[in-house]
């Protein structure tokens, strides 16, 4: 019956026409795009549902939040190249700065929200084989002969930059520590790295499934995720006495929200991360909450360790990036032949 076959879609189209028309003129469904980095998948899946419910209750408006995940630097580049992100939730300030440099958001974005625009923090810890057969307790143990270390490439991975900087900060603190001794120690460290994957998830696969390396330098939350994923009988989480305070930053992209008329909801979305509810969700996914009360309630999940900031040790991200990771920087020197 070719006739009905033709008639049906046409009828359907006619029926839908008024909706399409009103949809375009009066109320387009409200959407928000959060461009984030890799390990926040589970965190924002939870938070998006909670925020959508709260926003509906508060403003009567339905909102759908889409979240895009990937390597932090690559995500920043997509936004620079035109991906219409309402909010950025990236691994490090340097990547948000790169977007700000292109004029997409105000240069002073970092001071617009409390705590350096980082509603939750993380740090770098160790994941070892079960029973920790090589006895790795602190950064110095990584340099013991025969210890093989897995970390992604600091050139391509935000997490790996934190790994590198945490080790560097530790080396500086050693008796007689200086930039020269830290560079020497870091070069030794990377000589014990057999594989440099491009991202943290790739490195975790190399460590967990390809059985490479004795210790994996990991985001705190990724290490806990690995235990959940691969089983607590396979790996141990080891907290060094000292590490770096990683501040994954969040920011509203001014140009995009002004064009799309989403500023109110985008700002509410980020502020919600600082509420008790938002902080509790962050803690549930092993991100350290800023809120002291929520942190205290989760004290068993977040052992207190001595944390330094990138501003204290390296004078901020721009400086750290320029000295260590740009072409011709310290990291490139480590791999120069003849060392």
């Amino acid at each position: 019956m070719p006739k009905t076959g033709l008639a049906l879609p046409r009828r359907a189209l006619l029926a839908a026409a008024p909706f399409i028309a009103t949809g375009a003129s009066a109320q387009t469904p409200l959407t928000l795009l959060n461009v984030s980095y890799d390990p926040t998948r589970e965190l924002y899946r939870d938070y998006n549902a909670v925020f959508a419910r709260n926003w509906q209750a508060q403003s009567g408006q339905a909102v759908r939040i889409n979240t895009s995940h990937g390597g932090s630097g690559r995500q920043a580049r997509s936004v620079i190249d035109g991906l219409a992100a309402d909010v950025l939730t990236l691994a490090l300030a340097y990547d948000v700065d790169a977007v700000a440099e292109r004029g997409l958001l105000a240069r002073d974005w970092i001071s617009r929200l409390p705590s350096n625009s980082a509603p939750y923090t993380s740090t770098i810890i160790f994941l070892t084989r079960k029973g920790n057969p090589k006895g790795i307790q602190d950064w110095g143990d990584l340099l013991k002969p025969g210890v093989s270390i897995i970390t992604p490439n600091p050139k391509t991975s935000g997490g790996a930059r934190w790994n590198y900087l945490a080790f560097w900060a530790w080396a500086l603190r050693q008796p007689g520590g200086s930039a020269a001794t830290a560079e020497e120690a870091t070069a030794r460290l990377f000589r014990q790295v057999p594989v440099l994957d491009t991202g943290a998830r790739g490195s975790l696969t190399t460590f967990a499934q390809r059985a490479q390396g004795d210790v994996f330098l990991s985001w705190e939350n990724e290490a806990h995720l690995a235990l959940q994923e691969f089983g607590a009988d396979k790996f141990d989480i080891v907290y060094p006495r000292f590490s770096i305070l990683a501040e994954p930053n969040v920011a509203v992209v001014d140009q995009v929200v002004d064009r799309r008329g989403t500023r109110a909801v985008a700002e509410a979305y980020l502020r919600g991360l600082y509420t008790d509810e938002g902080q509790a969700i962050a803690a549930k996914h092993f991100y350290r909450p800023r809120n002291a009360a929520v942190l205290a309630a989760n004290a068993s999940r977040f052992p207190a360790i001595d944390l330094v900031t990138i501003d204290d040790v390296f004078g901020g991200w721009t400086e750290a990036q320029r000295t260590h990771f740009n072409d011709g920087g310290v990291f490139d020197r480590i791999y120069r032949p003849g060392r």
Partner: protein
Amino acid sequence: MTVRAIPGFGLSIGIALLWVSLIVLVPLLALAVKPWEMGLAGVLRSLSEERVLASLALSFGTAALAGLASLPVGLLLAYAIVRLRFPGRRILDGMVDLPFALPTAVAGIALTALFAPNGWLGAPLAAAFGWKIAFTPAGIVVALVFVALPFIVRTVEPVLRDLGRDAEEAAATLGATRPQALARVVLPALAPALVSGFGLGFARAVGEYGSVIFIAGNMPMVSEIAPLLIVIRLEQFDYAGAAAVGLAMLVLSFAVLLALSVLQRLLRRGRA
């Protein structure tokens, strides 16, 4: 104006040129223009870094090795598909094309799992010979053979089919042994096809990223391929530096393919 047998010359050449321009020439032109933002000196400095040179040597070296390693195997596969009749021949024929269809990342992950020191092949190889395949340049060659092989098979196959059995049979009646017939009759006829198959496989392998990245180990100066260096430079928001490496690869690839096409022509002329 000459009269052509086929009508619509202007229209068809117009559409073809427009298509080629939009899809091929404009992007390549953009790539060729971008690096000069940093000036000639900047481009030269950016390309003469040891890491860049090492990665270019690695990419072109492993691609050439993979192309060469695929030649005998590809020839044998084509021969089996065209000349031999055995159960499962059609399945083999279909399987040759699988690397075209499979996402290269899937191939890379599978090959890495297989050749890793704890993998099905990696573990016995390490135990028996002490060989390490995954996370070394050898792993790169394995991944590149995977992507290059179908090109050799598919370029040799039609030529072999056209050659027919009669040429070999004629050689046999004139007293040639099997090896002589292969060496003097079959191989020379196939040589141009082998060269162009090598060229296609090589070109495909040089730019391969998805599968290599999982198996290479990605160590600077050792197993870091040029396409990865492009990605690394992009991660640093260094668009011009990334384009410079891309342009270098483009120019080198073009030179290799040009040389191969000259070689192919010489081989054809030698036979005529």
